């Protein structure tokens, strides 16, 4: 299969990345060559193979659902691009 420009714009939308119109062409070329490479896998019959979901021979541990290191709001907010007292601030969402 091949990816056309419209498909790539759609995927970029899903990924929340704006793509310059000027770059769509080269991106399409690159992604198609990568997918051509990936699709070698179609040579293999995997009908009877179980998918590998974890390489560890152990199941994931669970822990008690409790706070272990809270009270760091100020530290966390310090990295915020735009802060306002106790909140993260984003462009206006509701009119």
């Amino acid at each position, binding site marked *: 299969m091949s*990816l056309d420009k419209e498909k*790539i714009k759609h*995927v*970029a939308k*899903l*990924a*929340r*990345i*704006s*793509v*310059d119109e000027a770059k769509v062409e080269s*991106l399409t070329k*690159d*992604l198609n*060559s*990568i*997918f051509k*490479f*990936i*699709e*070698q*896998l*179609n040579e*293999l019959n*995997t009908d009877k*193979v*179980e*998918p*590998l*979901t*974890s*390489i*560890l021979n*152990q199941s*994931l*541990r669970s*822990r008690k659902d409790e706070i272990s290191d809270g009270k*760091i709001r100020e*530290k*966390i907010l*310090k*990295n*915020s*691009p*735009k802060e306002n007292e106790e909140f*993260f601030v*984003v*462009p*206006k*969402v509701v009119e």
Partner: protein
Amino acid sequence: MADITNQSLNEIIENVKMKKVSSTELTKAYIKNIESAKKLNAFVTTTFDQALDKAKQFDNKPNFDQLLPGIPLAVKDLFCTENTKTTAGSNILNNFIPSYESTVTKNLWDNGSFLLGKLNCDEFAMGSSNETSHYGNVINPVGDQLVPGGSSGGSSSALAADLTPATIGTDTGGSIRQPASFTGTVGLKPTYGLCSRWGIVAFASSLDQAGPMTKTIKDCAIMLESMSGFDEKDSTSINKKKEQYSKNLKGNIKGLKIGIPKEYRVDNMPKEVDELWEKGKKILKDLGAQLIDISLPHTKYALPTYYIVAPAEASSNLARYDGVRYGYRSKQGKDLIEMYEKTRSEGFGDEVKRRILIGTYVLSSGYYDAYYLKAQKVRQLIKKDFDDSFKIIDAILTPSTPSSAFKIGEKTNDPVSMYLNDIFTVPVNLAGLPALSMPAGVDKQGHPLGLQLIGKALDEQKILNIGYAFEKNCGFKNEIKKWWS
């Protein structure tokens, strides 16, 4: 005393213990080297004042029983360091100052070392040449036009140029072993789960592992011992007794069975790589190991599988960079969605965007079975190849890379040719196994080449032992002229 910075970590530790050099003298020597090596662009951030304070503290109250007594270390800028900027080589994290320390770096500091600076790397560890970093290319000390490998390219360059006595990198598809091979140094990717992933900027969570990069095998054992261990904060961390890799290092490999996989002899591989592999086989055989031909039939499918699994996981991991809570935010964007889209477009570089798009596509509705599920099935087959082989052998010997370091710009226009660099390293990540790259020789241009030893899960000691025996008998010496200072 003579220049201490060209010694191995182990020798430096001995000198500190015998009080032939103080931690402050050592730290100053490295700072001097780093300041005269700006051309290599190995560092994104330096923490000299903080390092000198720590060195002074150590000298005032030394504890020589620690594994890394008073040793300054630079680390890849993918490890979160408390109160020190952590960029992951990306513009989107150009102002990110973590409020916490990664477990692996914390383990290193708890063993007596301290931070010297943060090392350049490919953006989000996506690359094989360190050319995708927002902070510029890193130069390989082997030659001024050569890439240092990637993604841990700042790490390999700094280590080979004596800017840090040892370092750590991360390896998702070869990002420790390939740069080690390109710079004539040692790099180990541990078993998945041996080193905690907590506090490491995530790329592909089922593949990422941190590991040591060092000048010698003994150094590698010391670093692995210092950084590994169970961590409750990583749900895939393996809970087992801590090993004493350096103390248990022994060079007797008589009777060990070494597998030689026929699928690792690929088309167009330079003659020198093949010859070096032969040389490696001969050295191990002369030391009493038994060589056994094996087959890992699904090897050629490892890279295509990787380029589904890794981007899929990356697209999900990198969804967090939205310009809201930390990192870069675009000044454009009149509403929330546009702010996200502009932030991610301006914040990520081309390779990262490519991989996010691949990942988003293979996970999108209607394509999941054809790509992601298919890849998980092939991953099973690749793992089974190794499982079957390890029933009869102790370790596997292969080349680390299909070529020596290439020129800057040589492969940037063709993503697939760049990806092919990791052809020998990627299968190991898919199977979760430990693998060591050790320097073994040079090609006709004098550029280093490495050989790779792959072990069973949690069999790090054995591959270190084989590497130790190999190192003693290989006669390789990394001769790098300091042209940059």
